[in-house]
């Protein structure tokens, strides 16, 4: 019941927002002020610090959300299944470790990116330096968002597979190793995000020097 109300609220809020954007856009265009809708201005006037720090925030927060979703999904199934089949308790902690690894990837990228943050003086810096800083800001945003989203979905998937693995192991012990292979593939996906994030952040140079 509550889920249906929540969906109604979300759809109506999204609908009103989209309608407002469309109405404003059409108003501007029709009154000859079309240049006011300027994406380039928007991207340029936001300082690179904002992009960089938002990227770092996404990296760690979305990863942790993914890991948390995974851990509670698999953890509650392990506990439930472990009542009648206590032997599954220790083996199935591997699933929890895979989920935790996802959070650690996000933490690594966030620390690496945070270490590259540096301030610059926009009035005294040369145009190349300003361009470099903008590039760094965007790159940090991209890297952080990539890693965050990849880890979010990786965590969810490892959690659901881990829950299935625990319940299948409780029923038939020979199934655990086979389902673990599926989980390893799910975990590998998280690693892809980490690699791309590291690649993106390798060219970052922020600051005056």
């Amino acid at each position, binding site marked *: 019941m509550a889920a249906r109300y929540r969906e109604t609220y979300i759809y109506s809020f999204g609908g009103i927002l989209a309608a407002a954007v469309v109405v404003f856009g059409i108003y501007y265009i029709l009154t000859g002020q079309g240049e006011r809708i300027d994406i380039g201005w928007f991207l340029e006037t936001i300082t690179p610090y904002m992009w960089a720090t938002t990227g770092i925030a996404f990296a760690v927060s979305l990863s942790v959300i993914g890991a948390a979703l995974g851990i509670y999904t698999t953890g509650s199934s392990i506990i439930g299944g472990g009542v009648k089949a206590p032997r599954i308790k220790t083996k199935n902690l591997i699933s929890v470790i895979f989920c935790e690894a996802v959070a650690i990837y996000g933490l690594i990228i966030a620390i690496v990116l945070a270490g590259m943050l540096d301030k610059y003086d926009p009035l005294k810096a040369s145009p190349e330096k300003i361009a470099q800083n903008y590039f760094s800001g965007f790159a940090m945003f991209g890297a952080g968002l990539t890693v965050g989203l990849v880890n979010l979905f990786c965590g969810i998937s490892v959690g659901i597979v881990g829950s299935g693995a625990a319940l299948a192991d409780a*029923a038939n012990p020979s199934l655990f190793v086979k389902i673990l292979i599926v989980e390893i593939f799910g975990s590998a996906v998280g690693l892809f995000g980490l690699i791309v994030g590291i690649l993106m952040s390798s060219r970052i140079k922020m600051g005056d020097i």
Partner: protein
Amino acid sequence: MRFQEFNIDNGYLEGLCRGFKNGVLKQADYINLVQCETLDDMKLHLQSTDYGQFLANEPSPLAVSVIDDRLREKLVIEFQHMRNQAVEPLATFLDYITYSYMIDNIILLITGTLHHRPITELISKCHPLGSFEQMEAIHVASTPAELYNAVLVDTPLAPFFVDCISEQDLDEMNIEIIRNTLYKAYLESFYQYCQTLGGTTAEVMCEILAFEADRRALIITINSFGTELSKDDRVKLYPTCGRLHPDGLAALARADDFEQVRGIAEYYAEYKELFDGSGNNPGEKTLEDKFFEYEVKLNVYGFMQQFHFGVFYSYLKLKEQECRNIVWISECVAQKHRAKIDNYIPIF
């Protein structure tokens, strides 16, 4: 309910329920039980299964009714534990499952009261899963209408009375008609509730409940041949949440004998198979047995998917079927009449 959120409230209980289901007796256990010579042998074999020491405190010689009571008690303890730990919406779902037992209990109590049986004797015969707070107060009423006004209107079953039975009907109607009318209202209400839950729960449960509805319609029709139940009264008892609605039910309302019912069932592929292999000759399975087998098959399918409530319903029904199997085998062993001992319904 989406996959991610299911486990927050229900993950532990689903794991627990599947743990209970893993303890359901397998084919190897049944083969052992069938070879027993006495009830004490059976008690020994059951000790090595999930049942454990449940008969430990019973004085020998064992009676089949004692085994039946202890089996049911174990099932009730497990179910009550899960119900106590459940939150919404699982709590309402589990409550819906208990309403069918409540209906049976109320009919038992009404019948007993009308025949002036002592209330304590009746209460001890009631199914524990269907107990409700006002059970002790049933004897204050002398007619069903008084009963409804005083007692039943406070129970969760009140909506099922309201929709279909008026006060005059309660006094005049045959008690079995009341039972079937209540059950029809309950089944349709449960079906609606599962539809609102949506997702995998709706998929699994609505299939099971649709079969239950169709099975009741077919059994009511077959049993009503040769009785005073008129065709119009029969139509009012058919639940409408199954596959037979609306065309099959309309055809069933006009049916006059078993062959016509078989003809109607042949329009539906699943039911055609059930009617095909069945008969009343020795060596063939009866129609009821085939219905039980199909129900067991649907309930086992319920466990193939994760993150839905159907596992709780299926677990209860499979455990009940297992209790019936064990009691059947016990009766055959106790009476030393082993001809039909293999007629239990295999589950796994």
